[in-house]
């Protein structure tokens, strides 16, 4: 008999239900409203009353209306056919809904996530008698460019023996492809799909590994200075309009990973539309296939039900875990985790829980940590590896990072790309603040050069601040050049035009090359006699560099611009800057910067003495 209850309270999207049988935390129930059934989830049980969050509009419900409990946890469908789809937060396929309902969403309408009629070419990889456990493959199908493993459902706890396995051929997701039996001899039929509760991490792997390999985003400031690792986590906090979404959009396009899952969580619907409409037409240069084939969009935008928004990030990560089990690299881009946190806050307030800071619930931190912890590089039981990388945007109130969601996120991520209002106002995109951001991962440039350039930027910034006080004439020519070097590096390398077809994405190879040219310029002593000279030199270099950045790799244009840069540079490079003095010079600059950081003198060491000497020589030079 069906386990049912009846409504005794309604407060926005929260209903209180009186029940008699057994009710499970987080189980799904349906509130019956005329012809339709509204999906809900149990979120608190007290005595014979349960509080349920309703994933849809509750208008029209009334006292004593019937609620049917299902006994099932909130789950998603896993199987071939997920890629390329556009889902709402509860995995309803939105294109299909649009086909049936037209312009508007309609509550109480649910459609299965996986297309049931699509035929998949199945190739078995086991034979009767083989021993299997959860997540082991019984065969594969081709999904787009991927070899999609058909796996033993993750929830099966034991070891099983294959009794029957389907022959190669075409099957639909619900067709039986294997029959296995457990130790007690009961048979379990397997199809190509199964369900998994979204709030429970999938852990059918051998071990978690340290994320060491960089994930190439082809965004220069990220790959070069603040890299992200495959299997790592990072966050992008920033005030509104600073460029969080654009940054994620270009990442979803250009990142070198197998699969991208976009979780559009409580933000604008229009932003998702760009992705849906453009991706099918864009060819991924690495695979030669349409980008849409490697993308899944989970979209619960701001005017869609708030409770489903809370669930949507789990829907996304569960699908990511599924593909990771096949040994693939998955990137999740969640925009914005603050909206997700706010959904939690709304729910908590309706439950009348004791509020924490800014009315967020006390479990905010652990919940955020729990989400990011579902990332990781893992070794699977067959020895291969798979990874989930999570990048989440954060939308702090007032753009102030000292707020609960940003702070809780910073505690658990491996890289922080902080966007600044100053940079975005000045149209310095991507507006990642190089002085504020950090990354614990190793990227494509050695850490020493990385730190070196960040120090240059910081010194240049300091000089620019100083200039505000003492004026341009109040600083030395050397300082002025250092300042211009910082500006130059920022202008031509850190800034990247998201709308220029070439500049938009810079390959690893190109980054290494361009970075080395810039580094040469930055490290060199330049033959510039006064500040006007210096400014002109850098203005002209910048001009050529911008042309260089928008010329396609290895074309004539590209080579010509590179020649122009070198020509200009060699003209102004200080004559007789032999390698040795050059290295000293560089060491000098670095040590100056170090001392600037540590605020300690290093003159006592032997190396330090030498440096002081060089410094004096240089001072004479200038005079």
């Amino acid at each position, binding site marked *: 008999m069906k386990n049912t209850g009846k409504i005794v309270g309604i407060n926005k999207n929260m209903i209180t239900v009186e029940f008699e049988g057994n009710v499970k935390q987080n189980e799904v129930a349906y509130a019956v409203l005329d012809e339709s059934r509204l999906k809900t989830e149990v979120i608190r049980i007290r005595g014979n009353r349960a509080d349920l969050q309703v994933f849809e509009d509750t208008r029209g419900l009334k006292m004593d209306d019937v609620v049917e409990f299902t006994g099932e946890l909130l789950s998603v469908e896993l199987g071939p056919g997920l890629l390329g789809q556009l889902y709402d937060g509860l995995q309803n396929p939105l294109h299909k809904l649009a086909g049936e309902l037209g*312009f508007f969403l309609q509550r109480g309408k649910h459609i299965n996530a996986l297309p049931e009629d699509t035929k998949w070419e199945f190739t078995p990889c086991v034979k009767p008698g083989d021993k299997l456990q959860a997540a082991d493959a019984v065969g594969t199908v081709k999904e787009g460019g991927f070899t999609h493993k058909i796996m033993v459902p993750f929830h099966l706890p034991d070891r099983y023996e294959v009794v029957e396995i389907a022959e190669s051929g075409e099957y639909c997701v619900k067709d039986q492809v294997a029959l296995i039996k457990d130790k007690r001899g009961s048979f379990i039929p397997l199809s190509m799909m199964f369900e998994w509760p979204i709030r429970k991490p999938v852990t059918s792997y051998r071990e978690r590994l340290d994320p060491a390999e960089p994930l190439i985003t082809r965004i220069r400031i990220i790959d070069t200075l603040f890299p992200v690792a495959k299997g790592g986590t990072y966050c992008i906090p920033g005030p509104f309009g600073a460029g969080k979404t654009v940054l994620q959009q270009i990442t979803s396009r250009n990142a070198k990973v197998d699969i991208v899952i976009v979780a559009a969580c409580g933000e604008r619907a229009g932003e998702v539309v760009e992705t849906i409409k453009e991706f099918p037409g864009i060819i991924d240069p690495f695979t030669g296939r349409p980008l849409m084939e490697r993308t899944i969009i989970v979209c619960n935008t701001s005017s869609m039900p708030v409770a489903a928004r809370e669930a949507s990030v789990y829907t996304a990560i569960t699908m990511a875990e599924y593909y990771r089990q096949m040994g693939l690299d998955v990137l999740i881009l969640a925009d914005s985790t603050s909206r997700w946190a706010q959904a939690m806050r709304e729910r908590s*307030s309706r439950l009348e829980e004791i509020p924490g800071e800014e009315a967020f619930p006390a479990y905010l931190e652990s919940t955020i940590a729990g989400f990011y912890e579902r990332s990781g590089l893992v070794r699977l039981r067959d020895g291969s590896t798979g990874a989930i990388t999570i990048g989440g945007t954060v939308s702090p109130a*007032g753009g102030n990072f000292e707020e609960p969601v940003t702070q809780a996120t910073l505690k658990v991520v491996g890289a922080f790309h902080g966007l600044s209002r100053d940079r975005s106002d000045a149209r310095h995109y991507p507006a990642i603040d190089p002085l504020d951001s950090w990354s614990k991962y190793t990227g494509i440039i050695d850490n020493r050069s990385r730190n070196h350039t960040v120090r240059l930027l910081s010194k240049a910034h300091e000089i620019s601040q100083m200039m*505000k006080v003492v004026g341009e004439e109040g600083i030395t020519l050397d300082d002025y050049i250092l300042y211009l070097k910082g500006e130059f590096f920022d202008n031509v390398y850190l800034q990247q035009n998201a709308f220029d077809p070439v500049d938009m994405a810079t390959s690893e190879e190109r980054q290494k090359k361009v970075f080395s040219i810039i580094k040469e310029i930055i490290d060199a002593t330049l033959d510039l006699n006064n500040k006007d000279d210096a400014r002109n030199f850098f203005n002209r270099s910048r001009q050529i560099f911008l042309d260089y950045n928008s010329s396609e790799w290895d074309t004539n244009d590209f080579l010509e611009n590179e020649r122009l840069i070198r020509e200009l540079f060699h003209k102004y490079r200080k004559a007789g800057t032999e390698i040795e003095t050059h290295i000293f010079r560089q060491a000098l600059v670095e040590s100056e910067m170090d001392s600037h950081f540590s605020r300690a003198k290093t003159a006592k060491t032997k190396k330090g003495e030498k440096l002081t000497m060089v410094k004096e020589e240089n001072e004479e030079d200038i005079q």
Partner: protein
Amino acid sequence: MRKIYNKITQISGNVIVLSATGIKYGELAVIKSERGDSFAEVIRIDGKLVYLQVFAGSGGISTGDEVRFLGKQMEVSFSDNLLGRVFDGTGRPRDGGPILTKNLIEIGGPTVNPAKRLIPSNMIHTGIPMIDLFNSLVESQKISIFTTSGEPYNELLARVALQAKVDIIILGGMGLRYDDYLFLKNTLESEGSLSRSILCIHTAADPVVECIMVPDISLTIAENFALHGKKVLVLLTDMKNFCDALKEIAITMEQVPSNRGYPGDLYSQLAARYEKAVDFEDAGSVTILSITTMPGNDVTHPVPDNTGYITEGQYYLNNGRIEPFGSLSRLKQFVNKKTRDDHRPLMDAMVQLYAYYQEVLEKKAMGFRMTRSDNRFLKYGILFERNLMDLSVEMSLEEALDTGWRILSECFVPEETGIRTELIKKFWPKEKPQVNA
């Protein structure tokens, strides 16, 4: 004509409570009191207790007053007869015209399926260079004017409304001062635009709950006209008042506030309204231009802050001008690639240079000697402000672009602008001999 009750057990703020059965969540009721009839909406059900939010406020309501449930939600009549009319927040005429009762539609209907949305593609020309050139307004955009009281924001709103080539203008006024209401109405009237306008007006003197209804009713009407193929521009002024009304009600309901007294769901509440902006395939569109006043010109105040996170950009109206700094139309890239090659790079370069100008100004204010290059920036800033920023300037986009190049060439050499050589060759004014750096 359904259930009638006359035992109200609790009255506080704008909320009354009574015992009733079979009542639907969100249902409408009418309360008859000595002050007249008022609508109320069911906002909570707890066992037998039903909480009603009274649109006209609870002042004058007695525990014995009659409460009649209507068994339906808030509705509005929809037809061409709406055009040229003025209503209040609950859809009652405030122009003395007839009450409309035909073709009732529910207010605050469902969300548009994201899969059915279109990528915006039409620019709305306003003749204001700070909008057309620097931050183009786009059909189906939702964008707000961030400003402070005292600025001529309603004038700007009216000017955009009159310039914009749209079929229907819907003006939603919230907490409007009566003379502002008259100004807006008279402007539309004198320019012959009233016949294609619909006004839903809540004035500062009206009950606070009715203020909350204004965006819903305006946008529901707009959405239906859009479904009938019309291009609709919705003007909402001032959304700060809408948010304050939400705050007042949340506090009466004893909700824990999240930030400066505003409820935790302020973001979702605002988003539910702004997200009604849409472009329907093979039908019309809804564009929303709103006013958000910022207390103390503080953009981190929860109202502008949440708005900024929802709208597709904002115009800062400050000292009677739209600031290039901070103002942003996020949809501009969909339209400014199709206008003229130089549109985008020129706009970027001019804003970057203007940022430097601001730095120079700061330096100057601190009493530093101005270098030659500084002086060039000072000149640039002045020319920019005079020829493009001044709100009295009205010109086409083409003219604005040409003006931009002229200003640059009068102040700088090409290398200083950071614009790509190819474009410099094509657009840099030739008359002046080029100085080599």
